[in-house]
Structures are given as C-alpha cells and as structure tokens.
C-alpha cells in the first residue's frame, strides 16, 4: 500500500497516523512478523522496518542494540526483502536503513527490491538531500517514496528545497540528537511545525514514547507521530512482547484519533 493512500484514508476519518518502527530480525524473522501483526492490530497505520546496519550513527543505544541483536541473528538485505514480501498487513511498509547498504546493493536494485517486496517508502538518516539524487531517481522509477528529514536547525531555505523533493511524508525530527526516548519533545516541535507549509503530511519522530507526548505533537499540528525506541524496548525485554506491543500501539493510537 502506498503511503499517500493511507493518509487519504485517515483524512476521510479525520484521524492522525501512528507510524511504528521496529528493527527487522530483532530477535528473529518470525518474531518480527508477529510483532508487525501486533502493531497493526493495536492500531499502527504505517510500519517502518529497520534494516540493521553495523554503524548506525543516527541511533541511540536502544536501536543500536536492536541492530546488533538482529545482525547477530543473521539479518541481511536478502532475508529482509524475503521477510517483507511475506508480510501481508493492510498498511504501508517503509524501509529505514543507512546509505551504505543501499549503495552496495545498487540504488536501482534496492528500490526495485523494495517495490517488489511491498515496501513503498525508504528513510535514510545519513543521506541528506544534497546526496540523494541517485536514490531519488531510482525511487521515482520504481514507485517508492523517498522520505526526507528536517530538524529544528534546518533553515527555511533548506526546508523549501527539501519540500520540493519530498514524497510520502516529511519526517520532522523533534529535537537535536539521536533516536531514543525523551521527556521533552513539545517545545521545539511546535516551532518547527509552524515553520513548515508542506503539501505532504508531516510526521514527528525521535523521542516520542507515550500517549501524552503523542497527544501534544498531534495537538501542535502534526499529521502523524513516529514511535520507535518505546516499541524496541519492549522487544528487548523479551517479556510478553506481542501483547505489550499491541497495547502500547493501541494507547498511542488513541491520541491520534479525532
């Protein structure tokens, strides 16, 4: 499913979106499939499946550790696409990964593999717009959205040029730093949401871990919240994972419902 279709569907209901991140293959391919199912059952509208990289510079400890677990368990890009193809949930799947894995596979092949395995968006946290030309073209040819990030320090001029390329949604980094749970997301987020006049939906991520924060972000004008580390922490605990994931997704989704 394409991201735009999902947002159109939500818009008809006047709902906002919950975008959930988990790391593929953490702790195993089978577990990830069940976790994705639990997320969707709980109310996630879009699922980001992290393709783990050995050197995840944009990630905090929670997702670094998840990446390490997944790599140790044998996750690799071939398995990743196989797994994605076997997931049949009625939500868009997005690939989040680092650029070297894409470069090594070849941008065209990577985009094609995404499309043929049902992945309709790509997020690359170490690929700023300046360097994204080749992947962007490959994505366009294959009907995959390349999702760009903006942050509180991105200038209005840069935002404008990034918006020119954006498709799917615009990923708004709530504050400076790496991924991970935080207490303070609201202040800088409101400011940046106000600065952006986007034709694609705006989704706020990095640091959101509970329904209160989600509600604040939605209230500040975001079209979606992105939650990652909070789900990954549940997976790391190994304790009652699927039901707790479903419950957290459900709770946060309540903040997104009109």
């Amino acid at each position, binding site marked *: 499913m394409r991201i735009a279709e999902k947002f159109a569907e939500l818009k008809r209901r006047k709902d906002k979106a919950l975008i959930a991140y988990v790391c593929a293959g953490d702790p195993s391919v089978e577990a990830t499939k069940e976790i994705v199912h639990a997320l969707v059952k709980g109310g996630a509208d879009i699922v980001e499946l992290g393709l783990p990289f050995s050197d995840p510079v944009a990630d905090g400890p929670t997702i670094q550790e998840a990446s390490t677990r997944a790599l140790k368990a044998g996750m690799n890009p071939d398995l990743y696409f196989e797994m994605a193809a076997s997931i049949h949930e009625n939500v868009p799947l997005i690939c989040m990964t680092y*650029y070297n894995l894409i470069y*090594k596979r070849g941008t065209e092949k990577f985009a094609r593999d995404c499309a043929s395995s049902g992945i309709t968006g790509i997020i690359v946290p170490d690929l*700023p717009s300046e360097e994204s030309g080749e992947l962007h073209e490959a994505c366009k040819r294959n009907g995959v959205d390349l999702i760009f990030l903006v942050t509180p320090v991105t*200038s209005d001029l840069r935002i404008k040029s990034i918006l020119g390329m954006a498709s799917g949604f615009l990923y708004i980094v709530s504050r*400076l730093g790496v991924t991970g749970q935080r207490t303070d997301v609201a202040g800088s987020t409101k400011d940046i949401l106000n600065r952006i006049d986007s034709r694609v939906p705006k989704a706020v991520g990095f640091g959101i871990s509970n329904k209160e924060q989600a509600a604040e972000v939605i209230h500040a004008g975001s079209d979606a919240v992105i939650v990652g580390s909070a789900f990954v922490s549940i997976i790391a605990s190994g304790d009652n994972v699927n039901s707790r994931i479903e419950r957290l997704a459900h709770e946060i989704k309540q903040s997104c419902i009109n």
Partner: protein
Amino acid sequence: MKDSMYGRFGGQFVPETLMPALTELEDAYKLYKDDPRFLKELGNYMKEFGGRRTPLYYAANLSKKYGIRIYLKREDLVHGGAHKLNNTLGQALLARYMGKERIIAETGAGQHGTATAMAAANMGFKAEVYMGAKDVMRQHMNVYRMELMGCEVHAVRSGSMTLKDAINEALRDWVTNVQNTHYLIGSVVGPHPYPMIVRDFQSVIGKEVREQILEKEGRLPDSIVACAGGGSNAMGIFHPFIKDENVMLYPVEAGGEELKNTDREALHSSSLCIGEEGILQGAHTLILQDRYGQILESSSVSAGLDYSGVGPELAHLADIGRITPCNVSDHEALEAFYELSRMEGIIPALESSHAVAYVMKTAETGKLGDLVVINLSGRGDKDLETVFRLRESKEGEETKTVEDKKEPDNKINDKEVCL
C-alpha cells in the same frame, strides 16, 4: 565537480541535523584561512607551543645500510609526540573564532585525543574525547595524559570498540550538542569540509619538507613514504608535492596479520589497497565491508591505523594513479620499530614504523629512487607496553616445546584485551 568531492569520492553523508553545522564550519574556514590575524596566531601556536618547525633528519646509519639517502621528517618531536597537534591547534583556534564553547573528538591510539586535550586546555575549551574501550586498554597512558589536562574520556563499548566506534559516538554527541560544540575530527576523514581542513592544517609538514630538502639536497625527493590510517600525516606531507609528478608518493597501510577478510572482520586495515567503494562516516571512500555493505572490523598492531576506512582524497589520488598504496604486516612494522630504535636512537610510533618498514623492505629494489623522505609521524613511547607484551608472548611461544600447544596466557590478543 562539487566542492565537496575529490573525483567521485567525498561528499557529506550525514544526518540532516549536521548539515547546517558543516556549512557553518566551511564558511568559517573560508573566512579565516587566509586572514592574517588567524594565520599569525596559528603560526605562533605552532612554533611556540607545538615546537615547529620540526627537523628533517638525515638518517645516516639507515642510509648506509640500505644504500639510499633516507631522511626522517621528525613529527615525533611535535609537542605531544605526534603530528596530530598540527590539526588540533588549527581546528581549536578555528572553533574559538567561531565562538564555540565545547570541543569533542574521537581518538584511536589516543594521540589525537591527547593533542585535542592539549589544544583545548591551552585555549580554554571544555573537551570530551570518545575512545574505543579496546583502545582505552591498549593505550591507557594516553588516557591518563588526557585526563591530566582536564579532558573527559568516554570509553565506547559499541561495535568493535575501536576508532570507528569512537567516531560514531562522537557524531552522536555532535548531533545532540551541535549548537555549542565543535567536533574536532582527527584525520582527513568524515564529511566535507573535514578532509580538506585537516589536510590543510597538516600540510605544514609537506611545506617544511619542501624547504628543508631543497636546503639540504638542492632537489626534491624521489619518493615520500608515510603511514596511512585515516591518512592525515600522509596527506599532510603529500599535499604540497601533488603537482610534482616526479615525486612518488607511498601511503603505507597496516597489513595486519594477513591481507584477508573473514565474514565478520578484516585481519588488516588496508582499505586503500584492497577496500571497496562505499559510504562510511560521512564520506564516499574506500572501505572494508562485507558483501552486503556491513562494515568489517579492522585489525592492526597499531591502534592509530586500525580503521575500516580512509580519507576520500587518498582514495581519489589512488584512483587516478597519483599515489601508490602499499602495506606492511604487523610483523614487518615491529621489526622496523626495533631496527630504527637500535640504529638511529629514535623510537618510532608503531604507526610510523609501518612507513619505515616499507622503506626497509623495498629500498633494495630501487623503486623508491635514491632520495627518500619518511614521515616519522610520532614517537613510540605510547607503544612500549604493547611491544613488550608482544615480545614476551613471542619469547613465551619460543620456549614452549611441542608438548604444549595451547594459547599462551600472556599473548596480547585483541579479543582477550577488549573485555
């Protein structure tokens, strides 16, 4: 070609949060690099604090043995014991002109961390250094040095717990504190403009060599040999000679145990020699990776060369054939370490020993010509413990007879040291 590129290498593959900081840094650098006030202040630091200019020393004993004229550029005599200070003084001063309050850095051998601590203490910055936990163990004297100068050292326990992981952690810190912090990168690696800035500050080495060799020999050298980890001492000495096509330039990489990769690691750190193109820590360059693009852990007896990538400009210069990448093994580097100590009374850093070893190994073939300059990038005091432990373990092995074939207890095996 974009400003940020060397041929097809280089670029800025970093999180969006860092893009404004890279632009700010590049703008500031362009503003001050020819500013007489900045240059005067930097020159003064280099001379009075750093001890420049360093001698270009004619190594008579080595020259006699190998039958060619060998000069050593004595960067081991720079304050701190390595070329690293040239760059840290330059960047710290730039950070001061930019109004930053805090400096962070990564370090492998601890030499760059030490040089950062020196510059920061002197110029009044708060400094924090990230260092792989494995390197903290094998270079702990440098940890004490940094701490003595008021610098906070963070042991990094992620990944391979070496230089690459220290850079990751420094980048994560920078993403979080970018508004008041300057990331003082220690080699010609990372996103543009770092490879250019570090090269320029290190070029003082090559500029001096040029003057000195003309004074002493009345001509340019036939070849210049420098070890290459990230490549800053190599680029620093090569850069002023790039246009002199007759001067051959040899970056010597760490050949480690063997020029081979297993599934998870490389047994060497030779990314220029046998690496592949990829993106690592902000730059498109030559890297050690597996077939999927996961970064392989590198390996070398010298912490400062133990890195899975190399500066993008070196990758480009190798690509167009202007430099000739080569490598020597751990064993050859150690032999050179001993030989230079005995023959010249100069104890080289294990990193620099790689450059010395290459000259010892190839002088006879004639391909280096008759007049060679080796960049002696640092002194070996920091490595004494490593070398002695290696020697003990070797002697241990030799005295053991066939009945006892199990691993010697005191073998300094990286995997044992790290945890």
